[in-house]
């Protein structure tokens, strides 16, 4: 029993980070109906930027802020330079193009920062809290991760539900034609969706880096988990992405704890298949069915 609790506690922060990554995928899907397989490539790239800033200034926080700004910019660049031109021709082409962006970003990162894994130490203590005479697998850093994710998700939900720009973004996602007829500049809203996704991905990248190491391909595995969470959540539901992101993190922690962490991607795949078999439209989706 105590193992079970340990595994769950250990999975909370990675679950929260997967939730952010899934959220980034959903934000892009909602705005342009494209699954952005380069999302974590962008996050890897901005995390390298954070690492560089941190090495130059010694400030983790400044690194995070710069990475967030870079995430915004990279999201907009990818949208305007790659997705919009390709999507004008063919939607599935745009999805393939995101793979191209991923490969290009990984190659570029290897050229700039080298291919070897780099340490990205946590800014605060990452050893577990002590209580009731034992050490629990939940550290001050985990708490920082959790607090950051909660803050970001709350901030996003305020933007989406309480502001004009959030309303315009939601309307552009649900019905671009009605939004345009109401006077919303829909193309800007789509670009903004990519920008915010880039920012959210950048935060996820900086937060996840201390849990392993940073290399051009070290985030690839998280794409599997985030994609699983986003799809099960319904791909266009922000709530679904967060709920199933955390859920996926916990399941992975249990699988890794009771068997071996190398089984985690397999379990994610099984979850994805089960979802597509029994509830292909996703749990929180607005739409009735989705072709698979």
């Amino acid at each position: 029993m105590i193992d079970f609790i340990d595994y769950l506690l250990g999975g909370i922060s990675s679950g929260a980070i997967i939730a952010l990554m899934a959220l980034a995928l959903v934000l892009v899907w909602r705005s342009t109906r494209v699954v952005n397989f380069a999302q974590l490539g962008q996050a890897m790239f901005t995390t390298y930027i954070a690492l560089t800033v941190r090495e130059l200034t010694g400030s983790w926080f400044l690194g995070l802020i710069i990475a967030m700004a870079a995430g915004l910019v990279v999201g907009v660049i990818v949208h305007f330079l790659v997705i919009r031109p390709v999507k004008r021709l063919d939607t599935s082409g745009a999805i393939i193009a995101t793979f191209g962006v991923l490969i290009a970003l990984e190659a570029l990162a290897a050229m700039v920062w080298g291919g070897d894994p780099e340490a990205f130490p946590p800014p605060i203590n990452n050893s577990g809290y002590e209580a009731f005479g034992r050490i629990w697998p939940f550290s001050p850093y985990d708490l920082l991760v959790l607090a950051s994710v909660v803050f970001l998700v709350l901030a996003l939900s305020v933007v989406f539900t309480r502001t004009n720009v959030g309303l315009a973004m939601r309307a552009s996602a649900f019905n671009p034609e009605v939004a345009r007829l109401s006077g919303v500049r829909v193309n800007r809203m789509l670009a903004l969706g990519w920008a915010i996704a880039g920012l959210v991905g950048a935060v996820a990248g900086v937060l996840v880096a201390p849990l392993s190491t940073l290399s051009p391909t070290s985030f690839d595995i998280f794409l599997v988990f985030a994609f699983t969470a986003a799809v099960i959540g319904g791909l266009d539901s922000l709530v679904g992405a967060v709920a199933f992101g955390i859920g996926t993190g916990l399941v992975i922690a249990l699988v890794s704890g009771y068997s071996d962490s190398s089984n985690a991607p397999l379990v994610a795949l099984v979850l994805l298949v089960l979802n597509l078999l029994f509830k292909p439209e996703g749990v929180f989706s607005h739409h009735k069915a989705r072709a698979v």
Partner: protein
Amino acid sequence: MLRIDALSVNYGAVEALKNVSLDVPPGRVTAVIGANGAGKSTLMRTLAGLEKPLAGRGLFNDEDITGSKPEDIVRMGIALVPEGRSTIPDLTVEENLKLGGMWRTHAQRATSLTRVYALFPVLGERRHLRADTLSGGERQQLAIGRALMTGPQALLLDEPSLGLAPLIVTQILELVEHMARDSGLAVLLVEQNAATALRVAKTGIVLNLGEIVKSGPAREIAQDEELRHAYLGY
């Protein structure tokens, strides 16, 4: 106010509109009637900037609007209520309304919102409910309300009667007619339901296979037996 000058539009290989010219003056309802496929919706969508014309122009207060984007045309003061009660079901009633005219000042939008709730009290009562909980007639009111939120000088209504009970259609159209008269709004109404449309309209225009076959005072058109049999099917 709104003038359409020799407009031709192709829909793929089909000539949807052929050399259509008409005037939409302020303060009254102008009705374009015709059977399904006459080109009525194409006319509306082209005016709103959703379709590109092959030839001809749309003029609004003597300004050429041809080729402008929908989001710019609505900002100039032409609002389209598209066919099929185009509300967004996932948003609340008030969110659907607030979507209209976001570029306007806070005060202008507040005034418009009060006015829309006064015109359609049921929307005020349901303002926090999701739009998909509304009945068909309420959703049509919501769609018109959203167009009014943009502060239009010209209102384009595409087939508002579709799927609604006749009594509700009459109520909504009479409201629109009053509004046009009171506030100088230019209303272009496109309808298959010719009898109802001609009752509120001042001018009637009969469209058949993309061409205007007759235009004149609405009352005369309504009484023209031959026209009715040939093009309007009642």
